[in-house]
């Protein structure tokens, strides 16, 4: 009995993939098995399991996808086998190896009940403000958002981030805690531990739904965009099934379902979101909207800068 093995994150992410997986099973009769883990530990383990991959398909962050294929861990995609890819925005084809299905953003949010009445974040600059001192929460796994924002504020390219180091060091006084995962992110803001956070818009909506008063702002410089991509594991023995799965995943209806589930922006104009969701801050319905409201970096730049950023960040900001 054949099984298609998909590597993805745990929690809601897996449940999102499972929406596609159910459809896939319905159409092909092939069961789907999920193996879950963090972004980078999955990469590390994929690397050590190079010749005999654990999974057939990988669902990961775009710039990490770059690490996969630059390390020879992914098969080149045969676009002819994935006709639905043609319906995506051009930016969705991240490389010959990876294809994105949705966009989300990291953006500031805050507890309206725990911050002064007139507080709002119309610019990233607000995070440096006195009102935020000792209240900010940031992810520990990815410092890129504030760094990119800082370069934007300074008007330099991300590659020139050296120039904003002093500015970044000033942010230290704002930082209260770092979160390691979506769950801790939600916990930190829910409990009021960090009334201000740079968070994933998707998490923000979830918290709002729990009835916690938070406001999600997209600063005028733009939120920091992220995309998740699909790729086929090198040496996968079920390449054809994987391609079939990808094609289903990229169908506009499936994209709409998935993005309604997560509350994020689909990579295709043909995917129709619930109007309620389309209205939310940080949700985009066209490639232009994405490019206008969000800062998008190309994967290679991101992937090569990120280690430096992390190293610098851990060494200078986290202690």
């Amino acid at each position, binding site marked *: 009995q054949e099984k298609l093995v998909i590597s993805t994150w745990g929690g809601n992410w897996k449940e999102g993939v499972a929406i596609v997986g159910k459809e896939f099973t319905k159409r092909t009769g092939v069961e789907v098995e999920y193996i879950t883990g*963090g972004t*980078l*530990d999955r*990469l*590390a383990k994929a*690397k050590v399991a190079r010749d005999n991959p654990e999974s057939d398909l990988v669902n990961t962050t775009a710039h990490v996808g*770059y*690490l996969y294929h*630059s*390390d020879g861990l992914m098969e080149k995609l045969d676009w002819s086998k994935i006709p639905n890819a043609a319906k995506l925005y051009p930016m969705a084809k991240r490389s010959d190896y990876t294809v994105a299905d949705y966009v989300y953003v990291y953006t500031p949010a805050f507890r309206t009940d725990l911050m002064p009445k007139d507080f709002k974040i119309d610019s990233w600059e607000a995070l440096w403000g006195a009102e935020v001192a000792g209240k900010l929460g940031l992810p*520990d*796994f990815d410092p890129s958002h504030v760094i990119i924002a800082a370069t934007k504020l300074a008007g330099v390219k991300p590659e020139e981030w050296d120039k904003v180091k002093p500015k970044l060091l000033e942010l230290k006084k704002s930082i*209260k*805690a*770092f*979160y*390691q995962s979506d769950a*801790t992110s939600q*916990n*930190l803001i*829910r*409990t*009021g*531990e960090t009334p201000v956070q740079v968070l994933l818009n998707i998490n923000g909506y979830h918290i709002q739904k729990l009835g916690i008063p938070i406001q999600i702002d997209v600063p005028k410089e733009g939120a920091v965009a992220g995309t998740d991509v699909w790729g086929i594991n090198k040496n996968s023995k079920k390449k054809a099934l994987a391609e079939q799965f990808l094609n289903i995943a990229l169908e506009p209806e499936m994209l709409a379902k998935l993005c309604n589930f997560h509350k994020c922006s689909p990579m295709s104009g043909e995917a129709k979101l619930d109007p309620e969701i389309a209205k939310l801050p940080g949700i985009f319905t066209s490639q232009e909207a994405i490019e206008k409201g969000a800062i998008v970096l190309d994967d290679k730049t991101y*992937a*090569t800068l990120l*280690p*430096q950023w*992390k*190293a610098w960040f*851990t*060494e*200078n900001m*986290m*202690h």
Partner: protein
Amino acid sequence: MLAKRPFFITFLAPAVLTAVILAAAIFEVLQYSVREFIPGSLNVGGFTLANFAALNKPIYWWVLADTFFISLLTAIFSLLASYPVAYALVRAKRDWVRSALVSLSITPLFTGEIVRTFSWMLTLGTDGFINSILRKLGLIDMPIQLMYTRFGVVVALVQFSMPVMIILLATAIAHVDRDCEKAAANLGASPTAVFWRITLPLTVPGILSGIVVVFAWTMSAFSTPQLIGGGKILMISNLAYLQGFSVLNLPFAATLSLIALVCALGSLALMKGVTSRIERRLAVH
């Protein structure tokens, strides 16, 4: 005493094999620590000592110092908290009391790091048990910050290491000759004097080995500082994990792991030296 050594090879072989595997694993860490990091890739390059050179930054000194400091605090508080329990455990008159004390104080050892850390998160959080109770009692208006503090981490780590400390102390206390205590009382020492002048000095070897073991243990704590420290409290293990699985700099992660190993062994050797000197001075056991 026997002329021949029956089963010598048979019984030695598996132990040697295990030791070789263990040594090989440690050797791999050593091996990686002297390889070059290629950014954006998981492959490692050739021989280099750059990873060790890279250690010479304030952050690493800080983290090392912090790791030491937290381990030492944990060892000391664990000692202070464990001694009365160990004493009660050995000296309780009723057998069922002793049994209950043993069970209560040893079982946490076996619940595992994750369960205990998670429990402390629930206990120390802003909405956690302690804050809820205090708020219900009207003692506080705003929650006290317990999570993401060094205090919170030490509170959890102390509880974590108490079972081991209690075992070591209980053994030491059980070996104190009761007649020595009686003799001291007979010579006019009040119960307090008996404790400070006889019982405590005679358990010094147990105290020292307890401190050493807990110190070394705490040096390698991972999930407690990770989850309770919330990234604000970094210990060397967290840094190694971050480097390995977040920065994907495996060589540097190996270097940090190696440093942790050296620190654990080093502090142990150092304290063993002190211990044996004190023990020799005391001429106990």
